[in-house]
């Protein structure tokens, strides 16, 4: 349904994306019972190859793979051969030699998953779990799933939905993936940030751009607050956290500007008191915890659609019935 790799949300057609979300929806009903494990990927090996710190994305993928009965190997760059200076290529060749059917990679360099998928080092599927400031497709898929669940009763696309993404657009791979995917699904997207946190060329993105959050909030079905990424802030993009919070943070006063049924998303981890106030984070309109649950179902769907069918080797061997 979606090819061999998942490298970028921008690669997905509307039909692909809806197929993934529908599959995730069916998997959600199947895993909503006491025996959550499915035998589907028994005998397949999935490697999580994380060159950057991550807790929730890695354990979400790990749980998704385990629910489908795949064997999971966690390869964290810290404390591994990578910290001894091993290149991406040699790491990839090692994983290939061990027979990995899929490699889920997070890397600080934009394009690392593309390189891994296209350099001919490995035969398995590559899933991008976040590369530099480029993309994080499964996050966008789980956000779209969450939006579709609340705004469209879990069916079809997101045509006409109005969504704003607020915060550090410049460094955010989540924003890039979401703009691409939400647009593909027919939603109307606005990115909101101080001018210093908008990337060069944002005018060419398929979305509106605004500097004023109060202007945008009354017209939304959903707002997605991004984390202020202190670890990527080498330069000073705004004077201090307090000023950022006053101009762009979502507190209960601002939440009251939104239509009463609009929802609040956050990819996590949240900085309470900076981009989102504790009151908003704990309100019933914030669907942050739901996003985590949906993340497992969406990642199960991606793993199933990439690994659940015929593999290359069997194609060449010529499978009988």
């Amino acid at each position, binding site marked *: 349904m979606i090819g061999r790799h998942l490298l970028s949300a921008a690669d997905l057609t509307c039909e692909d994306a809806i197929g993934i979300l529908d599959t995730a929806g069916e998997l959600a009903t199947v895993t909503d019972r006491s025996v959550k494990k499915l035998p589907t990927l028994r005998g397949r090996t999935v490697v999580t190859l994380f060159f950057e710190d991550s807790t929730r994305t890695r354990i979400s993928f790990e749980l998704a793979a385990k629910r489908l009965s795949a064997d999971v190997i966690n390869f964290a760059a810290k404390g591994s051969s990578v910290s001894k200076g091993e290149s991406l290529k040699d790491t990839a060749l090692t994983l290939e030699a061990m027979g990995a059917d899929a490699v889920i990679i997070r890397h600080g360099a934009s394009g690392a998953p593309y390189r891994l998928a296209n350099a001919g080092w490995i035969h398995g599927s590559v899933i991008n779990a976040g590369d530099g400031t480029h993309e994080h497709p499964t996050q966008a898929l789980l956000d779209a799933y969450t939006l579709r669940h609340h705004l469209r009763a879990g069916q079809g696309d997101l045509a006409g939905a109005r969504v704003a993404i607020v915060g550090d657009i410049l460094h955010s791979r989540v924003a890039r993936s979401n703009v691409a995917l939400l647009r593909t699904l027919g939603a109307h997207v606005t990115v909101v940030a101080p001018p210093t946190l908008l990337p060069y060329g944002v005018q060419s993105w398929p979305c509106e751009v605004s500097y004023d959050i109060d202007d945008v909030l009354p017209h939304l079905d959903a707002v997605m607050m991004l984390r202020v990424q202190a670890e990527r802030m080498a330069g000073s993009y705004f004077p201090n956290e307090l000023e950022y919070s006053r101009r762009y943070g979502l507190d209960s006063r601002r939440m009251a500007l939104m239509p009463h049924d609009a929802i609040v998303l956050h990819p996590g981890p949240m900085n309470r008191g900076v981009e989102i106030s504790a009151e908003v984070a704990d309100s019933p309109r914030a669907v942050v915890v739901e996003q985590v649950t949906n993340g497992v179902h969406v990642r199960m769907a991606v793993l199933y659609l990439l690994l659940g069918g*015929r593999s290359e080797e069997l194609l060449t061997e010529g499978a009988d019935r």
Partner: protein
Amino acid sequence: MPERTVLDASDIRRAVRRMSHEILESAKGVDDLVILGIPTRGVYLARRIAASIGEIEGREVPCGSLDITLYRDDLRLREVRALEPTSIPADGIDGRVVVLVDDVLYSGRTIRAALDALADVGRPAAVRLAALVDRGHRELPIRPDFIGKNLPTSQSETVRVHLAEIDDEDSVTIRQVDQ
């Protein structure tokens, strides 16, 4: 050889009604009975059987669907398949008599997968199998309890069940496949 119709709409209607009676007779009533169809056409047949049993007994019988895609043993031999809905009646299947319903019984591999899927849903008191057509060529030790029609076939033939709910009409056809 062109396509040949082996059951028409009224044959199917009579077969469904007879199978409903047989299910009722063997289960001695509708208490504890759960009808589960295997997508796609098994689900519509299951609904027809449940409706027919409801008519005969004057009581509704729980009916649902059980998608077996994730339990198939041939996933790696084919292109990836889309999932179909699974809906288990609210009271579950624990301690009940589950009647699995499929359109065509052939190798038995679908039923093997369905039994695995059922085991993850709960522990029925018994599992029975109903199929509209049994075309033979079993590859596993599985046998049906209720059959609409026994249809001797060769493996080079395909049997298709058409149901009005998703196809244009009710019929069962058989056709020789060109190799």
